[in-house]
C-alpha cells in the first residue's frame, strides 16, 4: 500500500517545480522592467474608482499632462520623468499596498497620496524611507505641521486656511456680519470648525450657529429651520461635495432666508456647483486655482486648453500643480547638486519664494511650511454656467 503514503513520483516533481517557481516569483520584487538609470519617478495612489473617482480621474490626467510637458521639453536636467499611478478605490489599506508595490518596483522620489487617512498612515513609512516627498488630495489641517509631517505638503491652503480666506473676504465686505457654519459629521467636516470660529471672532464676525449634519443625510428640513432662526448673513458649508447643500439653499430661500451661501474646495468645481441648478445662483466659495475657462492671462492655462479641449475640473488643476511643485523641487535639488532625498526635496520646496505657477494660481506663491495659504473667492454665474472671480487673490 505504498500509494497511500507516498504520492506518484511525477506528481512530487510537479509540486516541487511549482514551489520553486513560486519562490522565485516572490523573491523577484516585481520589477520586470526596471526604470531607466536616471529617471525621476512620481508614484501615485490615485482613487480612479470609488467615491472619489471624479477627482481621481482629474488628478491623474493633471499629473500626466504636466509630466508630458516636462518630458517633451527634455526632462529635468536631462532626466526623464516617469509617472507610475495605481488605482486605490479610496481605501487606505489598498493605498498602502499600492505605495509598497510602487516603491518596491521603482526608486520613487515623489509620491501623490489619495486621502488624509493614507497620509497619516504612511507617514512613519515615509520617514523610514527618507527618499520621498509626498503631496496629496488632502487639505487636512492636521497635515499642515512641518514637524509632524516633514516629508509631506498640501497643494493649496488647508481647510482652516480656506475658512480664513472666506472670513477675511466677509469681514471686508460686511464688517460684523453673522456667519453660520454647516458641516458634516466626519473628520473632513469637523477639521476647521473650532479654529475657524476663533478666527471669526478675531475678525469681529459672530458665529450664531454651527450645524453638524450626519454623514450621508438627505433630509435636512430641521436643520434649515434652525439655520433660519439664526438668520445669518453668510452660511459656509464644509465637509460636503454636493449633497445636502442644494437642499439647504432651496429650502432656506423658500423660507425667506437672506443669507449668502459659500463653500470650500471640494464643492467648488464648476460642474459640481452647476449641478445645484437654480440654487447655484450667487453661490460663492474659495478656490486656490484658476478655473479651466478663466480668460485672465495665464500661460499654463492656455497650454492646458491646447492639450485638452474639453473642460478640466479643479481636481485636474490640483494634480497639475502638484506635479509642477514636485518637479520644481526636484529641479532645484539637482541644480544645487543635492541628491534627491525627502529632506532635500522638502527644503527645495520651501525655498520657493514668489514662484510663478504660470497663472494656475493668480499670484506668485511662497511655501514656507506645509501649505500654500492663497485663494480667491469665486461666485457662480448660472446664466453663463461659469464661476467668476468675486475678489482679489487673498494671501494669509
Amino acid at each position, binding site marked *: *500500500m505504498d*500509494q*497511500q*503514503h507516498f*504520492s506518484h513520483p511525477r506528481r512530487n516533481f510537479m509540486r516541487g517545480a511549482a*514551489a520553486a517557481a513560486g*519562490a522565485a516569483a*516572490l*523573491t523577484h*520584487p*516585481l520589477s*520586470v522592467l526596471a526604470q531607466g538609470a536616471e529617471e525621476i519617478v512620481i508614484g501615485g495612489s*490615485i482613487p*480612479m*474608482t470609488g467615491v472619489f473617482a471624479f477627482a481621481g*480621474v482629474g488628478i*491623474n*490626467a493633471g499629473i*500626466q499632462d504636466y509630466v508630458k510637458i516636462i518630458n517633451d521639453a527634455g526632462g529635468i536636467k536631462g532626466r526623464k520623468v516617469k*509617472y*507610475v*499611478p*495605481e*488605482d486605490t*478605490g479610496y481605501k*487606505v*489599506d*489598498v493605498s*498602502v*499596498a499600492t505605495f*509598497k*508595490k510602487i*516603491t*518596491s518596483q521603482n526608486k520613487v522620489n515623489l509620491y501623490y497620496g489619495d486621502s488624509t*487617512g493614507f497620509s*497619516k*498612515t504612511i507617514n*512613519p513609512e515615509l520617514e*523610514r524611507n527618507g527618499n520621498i516627498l509626498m503631496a496629496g488630495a488632502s487639505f487636512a489641517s*492636521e497635515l499642515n505641521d512641518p514637524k509632524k509631517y516633514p516629508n509631506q505638503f498640501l497643494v493649496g491652503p488647508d481647510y482652516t486656511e480656506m475658512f480664513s480666506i472666506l472670513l477675511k473676504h466677509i469681514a471686508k465686505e460686511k464688517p460684523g456680519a453673522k456667519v453660520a457654519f454647516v458641516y458634516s*459629521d*466626519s*473628520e473632513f*467636516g*469637523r477639521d476647521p470648525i473650532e479654529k475657524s470660529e476663533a478666527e471669526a471672532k478675531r475678525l469681529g464676525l459672530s458665529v450664531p450657529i454651527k450645524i453638524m449634519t450626519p454623514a450621508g443625510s438627505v433630509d435636512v428640513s430641521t436643520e434649515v429651520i434652525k439655520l433660519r432662526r439664526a438668520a445669518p448673513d453668510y452660511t459656509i458649508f464644509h465637509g460636503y461635495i454636493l449633497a445636502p447643500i442644494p437642499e439647504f439653499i432651496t429650502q432656506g430661500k423658500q423660507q425667506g432666508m437672506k443669507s449668502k451661501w459659500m463653500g470650500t474646495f471640494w464643492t467648488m468645481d464648476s460642474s459640481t456647483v452647476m449641478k445645484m441648478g437654480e440654487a447655484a445662483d450667487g453661490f460663492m466659495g474659495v478656490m486656490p486655482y484658476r478655473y479651466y475657462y478663466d480668460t485672465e492671462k495665464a500661460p499654463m492655462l492656455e497650454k492646458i486648453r491646447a492639450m485638452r479641449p474639453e473642460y478640466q475640473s479643479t481636481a485636474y488643476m490640483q494634480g497639475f500643480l502638484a506635479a509642477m511643485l514636485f518637479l520644481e523641487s526636484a529641479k532645484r535639488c539637482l541644480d544645487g547638486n543635492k541628491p534627491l532625498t525627502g529632506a532635500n526635496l522638502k527644503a527645495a520646496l520651501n525655498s520657493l519664494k514668489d514662484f510663478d505657477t504660470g497663472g494656475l494660481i493668480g499670484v506668485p506663491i511662497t511655501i514656507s511650511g506645509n501649505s500654500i495659504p492663497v485663494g480667491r473667492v469665486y461666485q457662480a454665474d448660472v446664466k453663463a454656467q461659469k464661476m467668476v472671480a468675486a475678489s482679489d487673490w487673498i494671501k494669509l
Partner: protein
Amino acid sequence: MRIGTLKESYVADAALFDSRTQHAWLAIAAVLLVLFPFIASDYWLYLACLVAINVASATGLNILTGYTGLVSLGQAAFMGLGAYTVAILQTRYGTPMLLNLLAGGVVAMLGGIIVGIPSLRVKGLYLAIATIAASFIAHFLFANFEITGGTAGLSLAPARVLGMDLDTSFRLYWLIVPVTVLMLLGAANLFRTRIGRAFIAIRDRDISAEVLGIALLRYKLLSFGLSSFYAGIAGGLWAYFFRVVTPESFPLSMSIFFLAAIIVGGMGSILGGILGAVFMTMVPELLKLLVDLLPGGASLAVFLSPVRLVIFGALIIGFLVFEPLGLAEVWRRVRRFFHLWPFRN
C-alpha cells in the same frame, strides 16, 4: 490514491489531520510560512500580513454565521472595538502588546454578547439588520469621545517586544501569522467539542436543538462572544499593523467584505474562511498585476481600473453560480480527485 484509512480508536477518528500525506503537506506549509518573510519583498509581506488579519476575522465570522447560522453584519464594528482598545491601551498606558491584544479581544467579546442579545428573538436576515446597528453605535462611540481621539482617531507607536519595535511588515509578520495560526487551530478544534456541535445543531434547526437540551440563550451568546473575540484580536492586530485607527477605518462595507469572504470561501468550514479571505484580499491585487502586464501604462490605468472591479464582481458571482458551496468545495473536489485516482468515483 487513498485507501484503507481505518481508525482503531476514537481519538484517531476525531483527528483533524489523519494521513501521512496531510502531515507532510502541513510540514511543507509550515516550512514555507517560516521561509516566506526571508524571500519575499516588502509588498508581498504587507499583503501576507493583511491576508492573515483578514483570515483571523473571517474565521470568527465563520464561527458565527457559517457554523451557528446567525447572520451578522457587525464584524467590522467588533474589529473596531478591538483596534480602539489596543490603541487606547498602547497610547495611554503603554501596556505590553499581548495584554493589549487580549484586552481588545475581551472588549470586543463583551460588545458581541450585547449585540447578540436580539438573536434570541430575531432570526435570519432580521438579525443581520439588527447587527448593522452595531456598526452605527460603534461609529458613534469612536467619533464622539475624547478618549478615542474623536473624528481624527488615534495614532499608535509600534508594538515593542524585547526592546525591538515592530514597525516593518517583516517584524509584524512574526506577530500576526502565529497568532492567526493559533486562532485557526482553536476554531478547528472547537468543532470537535460539545460546544461546536451545539453551534452546528443550532444552525441546522434551532428549535430541535432546544428540544435536545441545548440552551439556546447560552450557546447563541457564546457564539457571538467567541466570534467577536476573534474579531477583536484581528482588530488589535490591524491597529498594530496600520498604526492609525479612525472611526472611518471600520465601515459597514468591511463587514460586507467579510461576509462575502466566507460565502465565497465556503460557510461552515475553517478552510472556507481561509480561502475566502485570501480570495477577497488577493484577487484585486492580482488583477492589478495582470493589468500591469498589459502594455499601455499610466494612460490605460484610468480605463482599466473600473474594468478590474467589474471582473472582480463577476468572479465572485461566477464562483457562486458554479460552486455554491464555495472555494472550499472546489478544494475538496480536487482532493477527492487525488484520493480516488486512478479511479473516477
